[in-house]
């Protein structure tokens, strides 16, 4: 009985062995395919490696170029502001001259009135004022002054629009930060590929803190929607609670 059982066990083991060999026969081509695939992949990975190395070496240049753009726009903006200030000063001088001219005309009119009064020559005075074109000149002065006001207002608007320089500078700083983060990641990948210790790169965390010198969400909002939100929050923050709110607070206790 026991020899029969033993034989059955042996046949079962042989059956298992046969299944294993059959499975092996089936799986060997798959292994072969994997090996072939890996042999094909090696040159591809080398290409990827080379490409990453090339890209990584170009990133610092890209970052520098972005900084140059920011510097160039800041210089250009300062030049525009200088020019605007220069024109504004000139306009202020012209306006002051016009005011002086207006004062002189008023003084002339007073003198004419005084003299004509003393000489009892009212008609002569009116005739003289007409010939001197006082009213027309005063009208022209008024028109010129209001035109100057409009030009100055326009220049102030240009100045305000130049705030876009600061906003774009912050956006470019944010992009620069992103580029540098990518460089660190790629460097880390390269180090991994070359089987080098990579702790420093792995430790590199580039979370943008609130203390960064730029705001990644900076945008040019001329509609002042964010200002409305700020006003609302400031008002809520500083407004005294109403009696109803105080009562509600005590009722909760």
């Amino acid at each position, binding site marked *: 009985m026991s020899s029969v059982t033993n034989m059955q066990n042996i046949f079962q083991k042989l059956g298992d062995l046969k299944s294993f060999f059959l499975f092996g026969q089936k799986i060997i081509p798959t292994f072969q395919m994997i090996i072939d695939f890996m042999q094909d992949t090696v040159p591809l990975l080398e290409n990827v490696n080379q490409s990453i190395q090339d890209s990584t070496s170009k990133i610092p240049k890209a970052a520098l170029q972005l900084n140059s753009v920011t510097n160039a726009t*800041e210089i250009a*903006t*300062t030049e525009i*502001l200088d020019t605007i*200030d220069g024109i504004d000063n000139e306009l202020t001088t012209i306006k002051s001259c016009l005011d002086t001219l207006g004062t002189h005309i008023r003084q002339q009119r007073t003198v004419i009135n005084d003299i004509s009064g003393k000489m009892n020559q009212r008609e002569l005075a009116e005739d003289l004022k007409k010939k001197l074109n006082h009213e027309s000149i005063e009208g022209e002065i008024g028109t010129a002054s209001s035109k100057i006001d409009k030009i100055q207002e326009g220049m*102030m608007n240009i*100045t*305000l*629009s*130049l*705030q*876009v*320089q*600061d*906003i774009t*500078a*912050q956006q470019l700083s944010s992009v620069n930060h992103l580029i540098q983060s990518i460089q660190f990641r790629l460097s880390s990948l390269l180090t991994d590929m070359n089987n080098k210790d990579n702790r420093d790169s792995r430790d590199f965390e580039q979370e943008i803190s*609130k*203390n*960064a*010198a*730029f*705001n990644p*969400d*900076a*945008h*040019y*909002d*001329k509609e*002042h*929607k*964010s*200002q409305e*939100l*700020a006003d609302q*929050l*400031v008002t809520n*923050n*500083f407004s005294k609670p109403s009696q109803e709110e105080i009562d509600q607070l005590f009722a909760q206790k």
Partner: protein
Amino acid sequence: MALKFLIVDDSVTMRRIVANSLKTIGHDSYSEAGDGREALAKLNSDNTINFVITDWNMPELSGLGLVRSIRSEPKYGSIPILMVTTRGLKEDIIEALNAKVNNYIVKPFTPQILKDKIEQIISTVG
């Protein structure tokens, strides 16, 4: 009360624009700083400064850091502070208010907005 402003911003352009806007609304007296640390040095050396207009994102010491430093200093802890920044998210504004800024402007601003905020602060602080 004659106001002497301290304009704190790392952007030369923005300092210039704030200064021009102040002139437009009738305030000619101001001093400038490029970051929070420089601003603290100015506050320590010039006791005629009685109003701070500061940006948020700056190197060395941020605007928020500057506000906290000012508020913790008895010498000038109660000075009015107006924050002028690109940060317009609700949580940012609340954080600034918690740090005890007196008012908040989101860039871009107009001289009228600046004037309104300064007047609001003056009427509240006295």
